[in-house]
């Protein structure tokens, strides 16, 4: 059976974990800003790599995905996968027009 565990089963993380994550998020934001001053290409690369990383941290820690069972993780992955496919298929038109 899937994911019928509840978070009560695990030990709760404390304040420290989340504050650390917050600091990392701020650092990443700073890097992103820095990259945008380097130039357009760097900014786009930053956008493509660091932003998903930031979002991932929020999902994983702030939104407690780390502490949830496989079901919720699957839900998020399915959603992101679907969006990615929508994107790719749309670009099969947009990019080749």
């Amino acid at each position, binding site marked *: 059976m899937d994911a019928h565990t509840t978070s009560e089963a695990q030990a709760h993380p404390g304040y420290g974990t989340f*504050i650390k994550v*917050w600091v990392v998020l701020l650092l990443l934001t700073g890097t992103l800003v820095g990259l945008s001053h380097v130039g357009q290409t760097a*900014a786009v690369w930053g*956008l493509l790599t660091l932003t998903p990383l930031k979002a991932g941290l929020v999902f994983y820690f702030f939104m407690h995905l780390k502490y949830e069972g496989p079901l919720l993780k699957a839900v998020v992955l399915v*959603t992101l996968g679907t969006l990615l496919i*929508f994107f790719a298929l749309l*670009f099969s038109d*947009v990019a080749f027009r």
Partner: protein
Amino acid sequence: MTEHVHRDDFGSRLGMWLFLVTEMVLFGGLFIAYSAMRHRYPMEFHQAGAELNATLGIINTVVLLTSSLTVVLSIVAMQRGDKKRTIGFLSSTLVLGLVFLIIKAFEWSAKFHHGLYPNAPHLATLPPGEQVFFGLYFSMTGLHGLHIVAGMGVLAWVLYMVIQNQVRADRYVHLENAGLYWHLVDVIWIFLLPLFYLAA
């Protein structure tokens, strides 16, 4: 694990996550539209993006990230049965949300001042790609702003329930769900920042 009360906290969280799925796809659709348009008008997007005030965008990012932190800390406080702190953290989230909105309002009104809003006579003289950029900018940040307002409403309601002891250490799934919603709104902003302010 199974409490005597008939209650399914995991079920509620699952429901909330499924709702978040719809929100992700909703904004996902906008992001897809953005990328299609940006693909078509790379130069115009670059030009128009330079008009935006990146500093305000960055400040707002910090504000929102911090507000996300305070929400998650309020849950930790709740788990430890620390009602005072829970209330403190939640209230600071609400304050930060308000700060975000105020900054946003300044930003928007500056744009209005410069005639950079949809249907403005000045905007109509710009190249088509820039018009689309500002159309997207106002739609996306506007919709995001609405979500902030909604999220603040939900958090305020949960805050009330915490004060009333309806949300307690042994029963706080409402707080968790409200927090999830707030984080998602934060994540959306994480994407909006580089798309409009930094890498355009």
